[in-house]
């Protein structure tokens, strides 16, 4: 994958790598303003200010416990599912605060999809039912439309050819890599603008991981992707922008090439060269 032209690093010019093809639908950018997150009294995120550009892959890296998973769970309001969890600050999607009064948590989650670390297809549903679960569980009944959407999404994740003759099989009967692609298809089916991925490849073998990384690179033409990964090489391969977090604070954020060639912060340098701890 060739790296496009370097820009001055202020994020204003996006290189050839990031061109939208014809007919690509734009995802939404996300603006995070002074975000703090708590588990009860314990603070997990400290004043995070971050701009996630649309139609790009942004990776969050950092050592365990740095808050990267907490951060993305705040974006789609999954953080508040934990008892006693709370949040302050703003997260703007298309300029509208997802924590503001005008948006319901479930509305937010319909516009921001999520893929989890361990593939979690619904075990008592078939493959095609799994893909359109987001639609069916929200009341869509039209079988034609559901089948069409299932086919589209399975094609997008390159699973259609592998499973088209076995759509009625249980979702759990696929291999790990296939299951994860199924979960991605399921997230795509509700037509979100943003896709959040929490360490999507950590439970997969290298071949499956490579397929998913290639898929992510394609997805960004239509969606904004935010991926949490503990594998720095994955971030350097897949992401256009990388954010480094440590102990709940955002230490550095910039174009991936810059972060991995000449990071500005000493802490970032120490983490990515493995001199931590």
């Amino acid at each position, binding site marked *: 994958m060739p790296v496009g032209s370097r820009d001055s690093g202020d994020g204003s010019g996006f290189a050839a790598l990031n061109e939208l093809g014809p007919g690509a639908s734009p995802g939404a950018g996300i603006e995070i303003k002074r975000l703090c997150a708590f588990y009860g009294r314990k603070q997990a995120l400290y004043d995070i200010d971050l701009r996630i550009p649309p139609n790009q892959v942004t990776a969050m890296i950092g050592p365990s416990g740095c808050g990267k998973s907490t951060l993305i769970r705040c974006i789609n309001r*999954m953080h508040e599912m934990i*008892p006693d969890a709370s949040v302050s600050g703003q997260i703007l999607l298309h300029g509208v605060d997802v924590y503001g009064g005008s948006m319901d948590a479930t509305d*937010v989650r*319909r516009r921001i*999809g999520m893929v989890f670390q*361990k593939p*979690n297809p*619904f*075990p008592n549903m078939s493959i095609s039912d799994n893909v359109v679960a*987001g639609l069916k569980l929200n009341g869509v009944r039209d079988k034609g439309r559901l089948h069409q959407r299932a086919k589209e999404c399975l094609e997008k994740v390159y699973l259609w050819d592998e499973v088209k003759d076995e759509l009625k099989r249980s979702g759990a009967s696929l291999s790990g890599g296939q299951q994860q692609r199924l979960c991605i298809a399921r997230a795509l089916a509700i037509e979100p603008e943003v896709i959040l991925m929490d360490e999507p490849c950590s439970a997969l073998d290298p071949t499956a991981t490579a397929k998913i990384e290639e898929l992510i690179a394609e997805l960004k033409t239509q969606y904004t992707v935010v991926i949490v990964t503990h594998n720095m090489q994955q971030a350097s391969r897949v992401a256009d922008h990388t954010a480094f977090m440590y102990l709940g604070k955002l230490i550095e954020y910039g174009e991936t090439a810059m972060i991995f060639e000449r990071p500005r912060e000493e802490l970032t340098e120490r983490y990515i060269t493995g001199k931590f701890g």
Partner: protein
Amino acid sequence: MTSRRALKDRILIGLTFVCVVIAIVPLATILYYVTVRGLPAISLEFFTKVTPPPSVAEGMGNAVQGTLLLVGLATCIGIPFGVLSGVYISEYGKNLFGRTVRFFGDVLVGNPSIVFGLLVAIVIVSPTHGYSVVAGSVALGTLMIPIVTVATAEALKMVPNSIREASTALGVRKWRTSLLVVSNAKSGVATGALLATARIMGETAPLLLTAGSSTLWYNGLWRPVASLPSYIYLFGISPFPDWITLAWGAAFILIVIVMGINITVRMLTRRRSDAGG
């Protein structure tokens, strides 16, 4: 040295064996006597005829009918309220109220059943001046509720959280997610309901205070009704050998039904664990 340890080993194993035998003896004796004494009483007439005059052994059809009726109506109370309470505790009750409800559920499961009978006697039988089917069903139903609640809550606890997360992340409303969780715990919930039904089938004490007994076939919701447990009691303490034989027959039928339910449950759970792996 080794032979002494081997000896100790064998003594301990022997002791355990003896204890098991002692434990089984009453159970085996019951089964033996019930079968030997009860089987002769079973005939078509047992199910089709009503309580005979003393010294004539004819039938207990009304008791069988009464038991089926009482248990049937009880499940209409016990299962819905029990399952919904179990769902509440598991899905909505991560707070003090939920924990309290769970606590009371656990306590009531072990409560002496005659207390439920007493409660219903005061609340229903007294004002309506008499034993009734309604009173009996309410007593048995109320007795069922805690059992089903606790069993449902436990079954739902076994459903992995990844399913709830996946559903919530798709923007599915909370109630629909809970429904999905229940459908994943179908067999666990069904098992709980079946075991609770088996349990109340043999409850005698509450019925004595609420449904009373009757020598007639069912003749009205607000009239007393016969039931197998109450007849076992009444006929069993009578001086008439024919009636005593009928009592054995009733005991036999009851044990057969309860065993049947237990075996069904066992078969269902084994099939599930085979399939799930």
